[in-house]
């Protein structure tokens, strides 16, 4: 190798010199260019909101101009569930109780903790209980995770009820929100089902018997249950009735565990999410939240309602 190099280099001295010259020029330029650029950079960083990165994320300023306040909501994928402006009294907690929002927030918490729990859980008869023990004893924050999931689920049920209670008391289901009320009723049912399907998953006595008691009622489904009215007449037995379909067997066993796991983690959440999207969308489309509206006098009851139905529309 060394011999070769010598041989080649011999005739190329001129080229080398030319290269040398150019490099010297570049080095000179470097000395002046970089400090200038650095200065510019520092100047630019002084106002980070003007950087390209910043502006690409936040597409408007965050000063207190009405436009930007509105944009803050409208240009945010999460926040644009809300309108830009709402009825001034709708921010009052005493009216809304915030239960809808809390329910949604709990749903998010449950999704988050639930996904983490899924990392550690196998829906099999052998593993399930052990996994819960493992969660409790081994997984960092596992116990907290499980506790949060459990209690958030309970809280969510309560929050849903209170939400419905408030909606009824403020008459918010009335025209034009009839349909959204129905979506809400379905969401209530799915919330309960979510909670119920999760009950069995630790595979302990509590869940086992709660689910046994719960699904035993399905035996008595009219027409479709083997103990229900007309069920036997239709050929229903413990092995083909609706309960069998729910549990994947005639008793609460491995199949039931798997089924409730899948319903709990995939089936119901998807359906509920879809319904939730519809629910939120309809809230907007039906004119935002119903109130607090202006009180209506008896005399106005049978007349067409004066003015817009709600302040926000």
């Amino acid at each position, binding site marked *: 190798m060394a011999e070769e190099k010598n041989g080649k280099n011999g005739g190329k001295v001129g080229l080398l010199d030319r290269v040398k010259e150019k490099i010297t020029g570049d080095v000179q330029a470097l000395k002046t260019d970089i400090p200038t650029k650095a200065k510019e950079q520092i100047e630019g960083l002084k106002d980070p909101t003007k950087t390209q990165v910043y502006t690409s994320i936040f597409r408007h300023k965050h000063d207190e101009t009405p436009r930007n306040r509105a944009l803050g909501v409208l240009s945010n994928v999460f926040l644009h569930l809300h309108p830009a402006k709402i009825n*001034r*009294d709708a*921010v009052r907690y005493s009216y809304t109780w915030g239960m809808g929002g809390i329910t949604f927030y709990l749903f998010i918490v449950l999704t988050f903790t639930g996904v983490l729990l899924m990392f550690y859980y196998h829906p099999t008869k052998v593993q399930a209980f052990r996994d819960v023990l493992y969660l*409790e*004893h081994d997984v*960092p924050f596992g*116990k*907290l995770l499980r506790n949060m999931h459990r209690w958030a689920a309970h809280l969510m049920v309560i929050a849903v009820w209170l939400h419905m209670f408030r909606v009824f008391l403020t008459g918010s289901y009335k025209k034009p929100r009839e349909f959204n009320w129905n979506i809400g009723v379905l969401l209530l049912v799915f919330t309960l089902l979510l909670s119920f399907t999760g009950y069995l998953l630790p595979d*302990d*006595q509590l869940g086992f018997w709660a689910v046994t008691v719960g699904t035993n009622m399905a035996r008595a489904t009219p027409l479709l249950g083997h103990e229900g009215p007309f069920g036997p007449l239709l050929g229903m037995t413990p092995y083909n009735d609706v309960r069998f379909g729910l549990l994947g067997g005639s008793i609460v066993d491995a199949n039931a565990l798997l089924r409730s796991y899948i319903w709990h983690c995939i089936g119901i959440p998807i359906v509920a999410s879809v319904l939730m999207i519809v629910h939120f969308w309809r809230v907007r489309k039906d004119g935002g939240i119903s109130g607090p509206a202006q009180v209506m006098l008896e005399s106005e009851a049978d007349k067409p309602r004066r003015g817009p139905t709600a302040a926000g529309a």
Partner: protein
Amino acid sequence: MPDKPVPDSDPIVSKSYAAHYAIAVILLMATLLWALWDEAFGMRPWKAYQHVWKDRYTAFLLSARSKSAASQKEVEGSSDYQKLKQNLEEATQQASPHMRELQKQIGDLNSKILSVQAVFTDRRAYVNALTYQIETSTSQSSKQSIQRDLASYKAQTATVEYPDGSRQKYNFEQLEEAYNSLKDQRAKLNAELGDTLKPVTQSKTALDDYVANHMIDLTPTQIGGLEKKVDELSPSIQQINVAEANIVDRCESCHLGIREPVKLTPASMSAKGAKAPDDYAKAFVSHPNPDLLQIHDPEKFGCSPCHQGNGRATTSIEKAHGNYEHWLWPLYTKQNFEAGCQTCHAADMMLISGEVGWTISKGKDLFRQRGCMGCHRYEGYDKEPEELQSLNQQIKTLETERLDNTKQSAYMMKQADAAESNDEANRLNDQAVGLRVANSRIDGRLQQIDFRSHSLMQDMKKVGPNLKDARLKLNKNWIPVWLKKPSEFRPGTKMPNFRLTDAQIQAISAYIWQSGLTDSLPHQKPGNAEHGKELFETRGCLACHSIGEGDDQQGGTFAANLTRVGEKANYDYLVRWIHNARERTRPYCPYEKKDIGPEDYAKKKLPYVFDLGHSKCPNDGHELQVQNMTVMPSLRLSVEDAQDIATYLLTQKKQEPSAYADASYMDDPKLKEEGKKWVRHYGCAGCHEIAGMEEEGRIGTELTFEGSKPIERLDFALFTESAQRGKEPITNPEDLARLPEGPAKESWYDHKGFFEHKLAEPEIYDKGMIKSETEALRMPNLHLAKDQVQALTTFLLGSQESSLPANYQYKPQDTRRDIQEGWWLVTKYNCVGCHQFFPGQDSVLIKMKKYQDPDWKEQLPPKLYTEGARVNPEWLRRFLSNPALNDTDTNRNGVRNYLKVRMPTFSFSDDELRKLVRFFQALSQQPIPYIPEQVPTLTSKETEMARALFSSTAAPCLKCHATGDVQHDAHATAPNFLLAKERLKPDWVERWITDPQAISPGTSMPSGLFTKINDHWVFAGPTPPSFQGYDQDHTKLLVDYIFQLTPEEQKRVAASMGRSTASNAPQRTKKSVTGPSRPPASKSGASAGGSR
């Protein structure tokens, strides 16, 4: 609202939420921190334990180290150590010049190798690369050209510059050779170095070994190692994980000292200046029984299989110990921790370790001796009836098979006769013959089953006496009194209290009385009560029976207390019973389910004889039960002796038998039916033989897995709440005293609480309930003491369905199984009443007051520590089946006829004999079958020398050993040598005579007869000149002599020892009460020694 003044600024727009947010965020942060803290510390209490452990253990080791250093200094001060040390120094000195030289050479070589290696590896890499190209090149021409390149490259020389500056040129082959030869040289030198250092390392090891062997505790170096380990301990969960058995135990996260090789007590682990050990100190102790850990390696067994608890949990003590509501396996309490043994050792009667004082063993024993299995099935207990049943089943199947075979073979032969070809006929005939042979095999099987049935019938025992004999043996009026409350009449009796009403008692007594046999017994002559008393106290009756009440009570608790036997027993029956308890009034045929009488025999014109040799039913040939189902053996007493003892026993009473109230209602036939109902209801047939109830099943629940029954299945009846809240339902002070930990103070809503209360007062769960007579709980009160309740509770707690894999269960198939089976027999027949099987285990006799006297101590039955190694198994079988070793002269001991205590005849079945012999052999690690060692025939000179030893004044063997000479044997205290040949194993005898105390501590045979000189056992006393130059073991010589001893030789030697017997025989005729009198002087024993 409208009335309130309206503010000027819009409250919705102007209101600030800063404060709300501030508070909320602070709270949120606090919560997050709390969650973090909870995760890091709140749920990890073991961290604090590890922290404290580090401090305390380091302090402990520091003090241990100074102690250890002191004792090491002591060891180092010994002359042996100094000698070894000097050895080491010398060896080092000797080796060092050569060693240094070698080391230098190796160093030089190393650098040389390095310089060659640098060049060589570079060139080799290029060669390999070229070779690869040749191998993979596809065209022949390029192959050749590369080959040429390679050849020329190999031929090129390269310069190697050696470290000494010299240069050398090598081509590739030379280079390779140089490199290899240098390496060879280095290996050679290294080997040489090793050889040179050998003496040094050897003496170093010897020195280290010496220190290690002579320090009782750890050496400072070892302690230093521990210190380092503690120092390096970083907070982490200490976990044992056995995937195979799904064991995850983190107990050692807090119990850090469990496996430390030093003894840690709560006191030694307490903080400095602490008054009492705190929780930390209590948690840091080392395992109280490290030997157990040796055989149960925690890395395999973990902790929870024995102790239970929640091995995974680390969040709190309560959780980890499993002491919370929903954990099915809470930690066994201190009082019951041995329940854990049952997890794997359910099949063991005695825990193998050969240690005494195990609560669980006691529990098992109680379960058996108290007849619990009469009502409750328990896997492994009282299995004979079940086995018999399955044998009957087998017989049926085999008989059908045989019938089928006969038919089939007849059919085939018929076919063969009509076959078309000869081949076909032959084939069929062969098959037919095969079937006939199979039938003969079946016959063999059946025969074996018959033998087995015979054995099983013999082995089947009942805890209680045979009530078919009630009429023959009992004082009629006594029966109702006994049934009322058995412990009243006989404290400590096994017969429990069934809480019977008077009506029930009358009915039951009537049934028992009327269903009893009415055969007549031979009339017995009255005996001598005084002699009876002596026999009773010395023949060994007291190993099982006791006499006297309260503080006066002496003897064993295995069998009945006989203090008031005179009030209930019939003399004639008692004599028969003492003479041979197994003698039955009538044999029982399980097939016909009736007692066979003389009329049945007469029908077949057979003599009315039934015993183990005549056990076939005259009616149908089935196996008969010809013995009483009792474990009481025969002491081989003469009828006269039996009469004497019976006469004595009948004097044992507190009131006259006639003083009992008249109970003539027992003859009322109407009561009989009522009585039958109650006898059946209470399951009396579980423990007694009762006419008409031979086939009754058990009335109680199976207890094999009682400990793992869900708590909800244990019926606390009205006391669930009381149990949960720690209220004590038992009020009867007698029963209250049975609770091991006294009246409940805290919740007893657990298995332990349930069992303890049930055992202390079985009817407790009926309390407050309104139940009819037949519904009430039937379990009788067993009058257990505190420790007995505790032992049984431990046993029941451990009776769990194990989740461990099968290979964790202790179910050995080798000699260890023989040991297991043996213990079942040993406890069945109470061998431990007289014998000791391992040091520390006290027999009943050894603890009796009488045997504390040094003279009576010699009268104790032999210890069986090494019985299997001592005796020939074939001889042992013969001895066990006939301890008299004689068919006619049976009123004596076969081996030690100088003992007053009699080795009884248990009439073991063949099966049990087999098990016992195997047991003893296995216990001493002896192979089976035994092949006797060939004892060499001695030359006449050797015989002469051996005789000299045998009769030496320094070892006067025949002074103590029996010779068969009646007068000499009067004060013999050891067996006759003539038995040795048949009975003993020579190797054992040799070990025995060198140090008998090591084999049977406390034996009369002294140690120190031989000393070891130059690896040979040499007689310790003066030896005749003929021994000069004899360099064999003197012991061996003596043993060979003993094994060739003839009666004539023995007589000769005895005579030569100057103790011609008659003239010098001790003239002791005075009757002794304190000292044991010696056979054969039957009634007037000579007093031993000078004591009186």
